[in-house]
């Protein structure tokens, strides 16, 4: 077993990476003085993995929403529900499915070893029957409908639909009532056996724990997985967006918008590019920025305004969004500002402030056992590492960021999505 200590000279913290013989990669980040711990057990399998092959075998296509459905069903085993088992340890357990991963997690302040055993056990023990699978249709059906009524959710997916022609990132994570109707116990076993292979998974633990403690439970519970080659297929995605504008009418009093710049997504960004992008976006759109001020002064945004880099396998975009009574004007002002800085260049003083702000945010996030484990898992699945990112932030120069700007934010390749009340209802 190979154990590596990963240390940050900059902030003085360290954590451990363990290549467990079962095939699982484990990270342990002990937090001195903490009473709570947080563990996350995840697989690199999310809503976008709808077409794949194993060991160069035939291509398999599965229904939309199946990764999320599997997440719900994995909590059940032959002798009951994982929540009932956690009830005996007092842990607070949950799970989520995103575009590119599915994660099972718990936080606790007592009986950590027992809770970790439960986590490792139920995720490795699938149990699906026709009856239990059918029962979930009602629950997930209501989850889908809840999201259908969420303007924040709709404005984002409508934007993704306008931006991406083929990439499955535009499909709702939970699928549709129709697509989940095709899910069977057999199909769940089929994807489980492919993606819930320990070589495709990660375990991240932080808080009141030691490396020895985690390894002991891992040794006891993990069942060695044989490594397979999983290939995910995504149809070719053009560089160009499909629709520059999409709109949906909805019972809302405050209209919402998302403006997405479609970026090249040939490869996942490394920590240097990530750091440059985060600093650049902070310079452009944080509360300190000239753009934010102009949008506010023109009454085009309010404090819900936000921005993010939205990236994963085969997709990458920069999204600006929030509430606005005049979304088209807000989008226009953002685009004009981007054109202006591309022509005139960035301000050095803005760079210095943004660098400190981005550094402060990531260091602050290391207070929380939840964000530590989640971030390490995210970085692991992208082939990146947390402390190298923090180093990269501190080492990024003004010229790096200026160069980064020239590679991204093409104002001729963005989609504006708006959710607002129908005109005649106002």
């Amino acid at each position: 077993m190979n154990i590596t200590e990963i240390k940050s000279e900059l902030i003085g913290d360290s954590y451990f990476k363990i290549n467990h013989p079962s095939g699982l990669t484990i990270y342990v980040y002990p937090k001195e003085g903490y009473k709570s711990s947080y563990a996350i057990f995840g697989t690199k399998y999310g809503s976008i993995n709808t077409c794949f092959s194993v060991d160069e075998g035939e291509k398999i296509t599965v229904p939309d929403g199946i990764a999320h459905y599997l997440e719900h069903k994995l909590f059940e085993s032959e002798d009951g529900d994982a929540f009932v088992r956690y009830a005996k340890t007092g842990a607070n357990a949950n799970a989520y499915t995103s575009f590119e991963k599915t994660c099972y997690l718990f936080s606790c302040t007592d009986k950590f070893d027992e809770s970790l055993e439960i986590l490792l056990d139920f995720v490795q023990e699938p149990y699906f029957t026709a009856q239990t699978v059918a029962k979930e249709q009602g629950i997930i059906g209501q989850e889908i409908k809840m999201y259908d009524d969420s303007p924040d959710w709709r404005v984002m997916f409508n934007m993704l639909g306008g931006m991406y022609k083929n990439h499955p990132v535009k499909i709702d994570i939970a699928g549709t009532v129709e697509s989940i109707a095709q899910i069977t116990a057999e199909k769940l076993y089929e994807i489980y056996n492919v993606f819930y292979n320990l070589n495709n998974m990660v375990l991240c633990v932080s808080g009141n724990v030691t490396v020895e403690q985690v390894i002991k439970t891992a040794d006891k519970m993990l069942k060695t997985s044989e490594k397979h080659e999983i290939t995910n297929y995504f149809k070719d995605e053009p560089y160009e967006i499909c629709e520059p504008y999409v709109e949906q009418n909805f019972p809302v009093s405050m209209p919402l918008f998302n403006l997405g710049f479609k970026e090249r997504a040939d490869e996942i960004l490394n920590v240097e590019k990530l750091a440059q992008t985060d600093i650049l976006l902070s310079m452009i759109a944080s509360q300190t920025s000239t753009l934010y001020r102009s949008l506010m002064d023109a009454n085009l945004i309010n404090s819900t305004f936000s921005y993010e880099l939205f990236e994963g396998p085969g997709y990458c975009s920069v999204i600006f969004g929030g509430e606005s009574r005049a979304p088209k004007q807000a989008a226009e002002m953002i685009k004009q500002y981007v054109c202006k800085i591309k022509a005139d260049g960035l301000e050095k003083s803005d760079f210095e402030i943004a660098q400190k702000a981005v550094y402060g945010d990531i260091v602050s996030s290391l207070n929380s056992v939840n964000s530590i484990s989640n971030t390490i898992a995210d970085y692991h699945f992208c082939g990146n590492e947390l402390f190298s990112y923090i180093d990269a932030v501190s080492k990024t120069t003004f010229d790096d960021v200026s160069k980064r700007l020239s590679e991204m934010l093409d104002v001729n390749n963005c989609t504006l999505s708006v959710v607002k009340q129908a005109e005649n209802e106002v």
Partner: protein
Amino acid sequence: MNFINRYEIADGVFFSSIKDSRFKTMKISANIIVPLSEETASANALLCGVLSRSCKAYPDFTQLSKKLSSLYGADLDASIRKAGDCQLLSISASGLDDRYAFSGESIARELSLLLCSVIFEPNLNDSAFIESEVEQERRQLLDLIDSEFNDKRIYANGQLIKYMCADEVFGMKRYGTADKIKEITPASLYKTWQNLLKTATFEIMYIGDSSSEKAKEVFSNAFSNVERAPSEIKTEVVRRAEDVKHISEEMELSQSKLVMGFRTGVAIPDKEVNATRLMCAILGGTANSKLFCNVREKQSLCYYCASRYDRQKGILTVDSGVEGENIEKAEEGILKEIEDMKNGVITDFEIEATKMAVVNSFYTTNDTVSGIETWYASQLFDGSFKTIEELSAKINAVSREDIIKAAQKLTLDTVYVLKNK
């Protein structure tokens, strides 16, 4: 659990500090408590926004934001909420601990000074606030009111309280009404500010590794020039519901929302509060609760069905998102679980597991700066501050009989349905 040091630094002004070296950040917050009223709520809410966006030294939003960013992305946040029949305005500053500054500057000291200046040295034009600053915050507050309609779960819960507490001051919104917000002028807001400094109860909290002495001194000095006459803080508790009100609205939605409001007959400072709290958690507070296991898992009626207890008002609410045709079934299912609890159908396992989950959630809060702040801030109205150990012992001491008795006191007051067309 950390020890809280609490001093009264002026009449009705308290400074509390909690020293903790485990974190990479510190936080200082001013919790400003005033009676909730139709007359003043809107102006107080607007004032809270205006104060937190600029001050004399940093006279506009951009300059203040730049100052915060240069302090390693520090934050200055303002929030408004209802706490029983009180309005709780909170302005807080948080940032990296001094240990992580690149060149040895004291971030904690600067943030304490900054928080004090936004409260005591706002950007003024004689005896009025700056018009453009007021207009900007007014617009945003009006936006906030409209945006609460966007999220239908929040909207439905708000509607329940509006109808259930129509005859109580608690029935109003935390920021008053749009009409009142529109009436405020830069000069009237100045009076609101003066009045707030005089009559509000202030609870200032400092959490961090660096010394809080400087912050305490800064606030003590600031208040030494203020004439103080704190208002009385109290909450009206309706102990029983007489008739059940049914309210229904229709909208173009995919899912219907069902919200039920109960009177629990128990509110702080009653000693039965912890039994009611546990009863609520057994009913619908965890993934092992009766509502989760039965209404969601067994009956497959919904994705969420949860209960919440407001110990200041003595109100328990249950909310769920269901198919239009299943509203009645869900309502019956919820009432059946409550009936079961009243009849003592509660297993030892349910009680023990819920106690463990509640205590676990207490301890988890102790591992974040904001969690520690929330822990103490949530007890501001309890009459005393309890550590996690103390409150956990109280929760663990609740008996089965106490829980059944708490359930038996529940009376259904209002059922609100937002139905999909």
